[in-house]
């Protein structure tokens, strides 16, 4: 009662209204600030605590190019799990949605609340519960999504709805191959790789520099083709003299294939984590030689010492277990010299009856391409030819048959299906270089592991750049100014009560009495108002359902209440400090 009399009833009502209003605004501004910053940071950073690999220099996770083979290579490290994905801002039913391309849907299993989780790649799309509701979709709907970069419209079937309970509920998920098509990424590249089981610093060390490989070999005529973890050729070395060959490659899992006339030997596969010397002359142990011959041929394999090695018919070819060295394969009417360096496939058809296949490689604008790697695989996917070509046209000796030609000039890859013999020159077109700085090994070298926060800041700075800046500046300014407004209201309350407080002081009321009778009730009132305003701000925040780039501004009531209480307490302390100061100075001012 004393408190009401001292502070004046009408002033208390005005104070309550003003405080409630100001606290509600302050809380709403804070909820927006917290919601947007945390939502965007988490969403743009890949929604995980794991390390993310993105392209160094990319302004956003959405514009990053990371070689997919790196994920395969990282998965070869003990206890390391790498998950490649794409993230593409897209439009569905006129509203922005982030579409995530994934190859592994482990996180989404048992999280489907409507429809079903497709088991194979196909023309399907899954929606998070929040996005599904917002976009007013139905299971079985056919939607069209356009790539932000390419003139490519993709039709997809709404297959299911998932609920993970995090920001991914605002996204959509498609198979990785469609994610790549939507993102407009070249074949073999993804937006980012999420890595578990290795620390950021260790990963940084692994990726920061290329490693030297010295290849020691005997003078053998042939070609050494190096395949990455996705079995795509990334380098080819001609072995014409016995000089050791040196090359630099970034971290990765590589397979070395030796090719000579009719022979393709898988020499070794290695996970490159340090500088290495590869000695092709000192290999020990038994290797498998697969000779593509009919069962009736019954070939004989003779070693250098004249010993005959027995072969086994395995259904489609003859198999020999041999050690490294030179051999002679004797058939009925012919014999072939074979040098075994590792597991090998020998097809005499490649050494005999060869046809010439002419391949011409061009850029999309018709200009001639050079310095590309060409590889030819049979229909079983076995590499039968690989070489680096410095001219646009290359002539390849091949026996008759059907083949897949791959021309690789990373990050570009073009494929063609051919029937040999072919009278025509096979023309293969590489898509144009949209960004000349993104060239083969540069793409590997320019990677850096970063925490989700770092990745998020990059994403924020580019993807929604101005919008993010505007929203953050706006919400920060609103939060600070509304806090000041609350302080001003408490100051006003003190100003109204000052005369009555002076009266109390003149009546010899002690400061403890004033504290108990005046300021404590105001503290209780402030805390009540902070709770009430938190509830109001939370209701307002939820009902407005504001979003940016499809992501909602997720916030928790506890955070709003904690901020509100802190604000009310600080303002009350300023009120209390004013009273203490006045008592100390004898209400002179």
């Amino acid at each position, binding site marked *: 009662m004393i408190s009401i009399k001292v502070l004046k009833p009408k002033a208390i009502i*005005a104070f309550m209204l003003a405080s409630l209003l100001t606290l509600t605004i302050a809380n709403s501004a804070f909820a927006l600030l917290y919601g947007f910053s945390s939502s965007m940071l988490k969403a743009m950073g890949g929604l995980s605590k794991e390390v993310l690999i993105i392209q160094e220099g990319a302004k956003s996770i959405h514009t990053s190019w990371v070689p997919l083979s790196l994920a395969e290579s990282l998965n070869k490290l003990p206890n390391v799990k790498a998950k490649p994905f794409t993230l593409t801002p897209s*439009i569905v*039913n006129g*509203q922005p949605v982030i579409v995530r391309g994934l190859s592994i849907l482990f996180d989404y299993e048992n999280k489907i609340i409507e429809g079903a989780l497709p088991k194979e*790649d196909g023309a399907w799309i899954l929606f998070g519960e929040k996005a599904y509701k917002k976009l007013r979709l139905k299971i079985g709907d056919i939607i069209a999504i356009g*790539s932000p970069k390419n003139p490519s419209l993709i039709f997809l079937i709404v297959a299911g709805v998932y609920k993970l309970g995090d920001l991914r509920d605002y996204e959509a998920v498609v198979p990785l191959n469609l994610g790549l098509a939507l993102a407009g990424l070249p074949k073999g590249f993804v937006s980012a790789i999420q890595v578990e089981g290795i620390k950021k610093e260790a990963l940084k060390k692994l990726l920061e520099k290329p490693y030297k490989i010295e290849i020691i070999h005997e003078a053998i005529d042939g070609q050494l083709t190096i395949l990455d973890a996705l079995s795509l050729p990334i380098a080819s070395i001609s072995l014409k003299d016995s000089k050791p060959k040196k090359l630099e490659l970034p971290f990765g899992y590589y397979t070395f294939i030796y090719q000579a006339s009719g022979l393709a030997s898988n020499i070794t596969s290695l996970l490159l984590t340090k500088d290495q010397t590869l000695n092709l002359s000192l290999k020990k142990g038994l290797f498998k030689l697969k000779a593509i011959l009919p069962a009736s041929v019954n070939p004989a394999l003779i070693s250098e010492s004249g010993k005959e090695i027995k072969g086994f018919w395995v259904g489609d070819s003859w198999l020999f277990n041999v050690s490294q060295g030179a051999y002679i394969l004797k058939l009925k009417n012919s014999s072939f010299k074979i040098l075994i360096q590792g597991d090998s496939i020998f097809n005499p058809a490649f050494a005999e009856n060869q046809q010439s296949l002419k391949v011409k490689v061009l850029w999309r604008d018709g200009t001639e391409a050079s310095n590309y790697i060409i590889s030819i695989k049979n229909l079983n996917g076995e590499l039968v030819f690989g070489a680096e070509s410095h001219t646009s046209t290359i002539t390849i000796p091949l026996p008759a048959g059907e083949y897949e030609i791959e021309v690789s000039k990373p990050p570009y890859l073009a494929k063609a299906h051919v029937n040999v013999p072919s009278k025509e020159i096979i023309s293969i077109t590489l898509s144009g270089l949209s960004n000349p700085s993104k060239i083969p090994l540069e793409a590997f070298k320019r990677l850096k592991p970063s925490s989700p926060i770092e990745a998020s800041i990059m994403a924020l700075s580019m993807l929604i750049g101005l919008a993010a800046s505007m*929203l953050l500046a*706006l919400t*920060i300014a609103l939060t600070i100014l509304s806090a000041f407004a609350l302080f001003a209201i408490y100051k006003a309350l003190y100003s109204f009560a000052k005369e009555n407080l002076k009266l109390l002081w003149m009546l010899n009321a002690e400061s403890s009495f004033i504290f108990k009778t005046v300021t404590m009730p105001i503290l209780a009132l402030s805390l009540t108002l902070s709770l009430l305003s938190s509830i109001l701000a939370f209701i307002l925040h939820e009902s407005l359902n504001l*979003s940016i780039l499809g992501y909602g501004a997720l916030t928790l009531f506890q955070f709003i209440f904690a901020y509100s209480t802190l604000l009310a307490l600080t303002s009350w302390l300023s009120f209390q400090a004013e009273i203490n100061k006045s008592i100390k100075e004898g209400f002179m001012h």
Partner: protein
Amino acid sequence: MGFSLLKNLRLTQFMLAAAARGEFKLTQSILATALFVSLLIVLTVSSQAYLSQLPILEEIAIKPALIASKEPLKGIAIKISYIKLNSNFILILASSNLTAFLKLNQANIDGKLPSFGEALLGVKLKPLIENSTFTLKGLNLKVSGFINSPEHLSSAVILADSTFEKLNFSYECFYLKEEGDFQAFAQAPSSLSLIKAVASEILKMVSSIAWVLRSALTLICLMQAYSIAKESRKTLKMLLALNASKINLTLSLTILALLISGIAVALGYAIGLTGLALSSSALSIFYGLPYIKPLASYALIKELIFALTASFLALTILFANEVLKL
């Protein structure tokens, strides 16, 4: 008791002097109102700065080259259905102009376009072929060729219109066209529509917050006006006792109200601009985000007039009410 300009000016002068001495306790009220005005200023200035940059973003965005619509338009009509085969979704597409459709998709095919009873299959559907035929809804279709690319057609089945009709699929019809209206159902590249959609989200948000802030400003103006009017009661009683007319008092108070409102709005404007500039420059320095350059605009003037009017009306009404009570 009548109206006199000279008397009124003297009265106003006296009231201003009293206000300056702190008799109306204006400082706190002006500050509180100014802070609420600044909130509105921050919102308006930042949204206007964002809007002013949008045309630049739109200029650099790639214009749509392909659009899809559910409404008939001059282009290619494409019928789309799907089947679920071994828990895999397979798109079934048909059009009377398959050549144009495949050209729009830059499709690379081996073989020929399907005629009646034939199917052009995505390359990933090869394992489903038995004896050179593909079975769809019990109908054996001869495989006319394969689509090697693009990726999104690699698991699709393309049929001639007549085959599609015979199979009696329920379907959705889309119309595809090169270039066109931005309001289409879908477009590619979609960067322009993405910019527009994100801008629309932000403007929706700004508009919602603006309504909340305008309501809050009005309430605060009323509360502050009430407290000022109440504080002025003693002075007004004294002036009435000194033979000042109620009309003169009201007019002087109106001038005072205008001054108070003007000061509060000007202060709010300054605080708002400074606050936004400070937070934006901090974000720019520490996070490299673009700096929001405060921008004067018609919308800003509108908000300033609103704030001035709200404060002035609240003060005038409550001052007049106070004078009437005397």
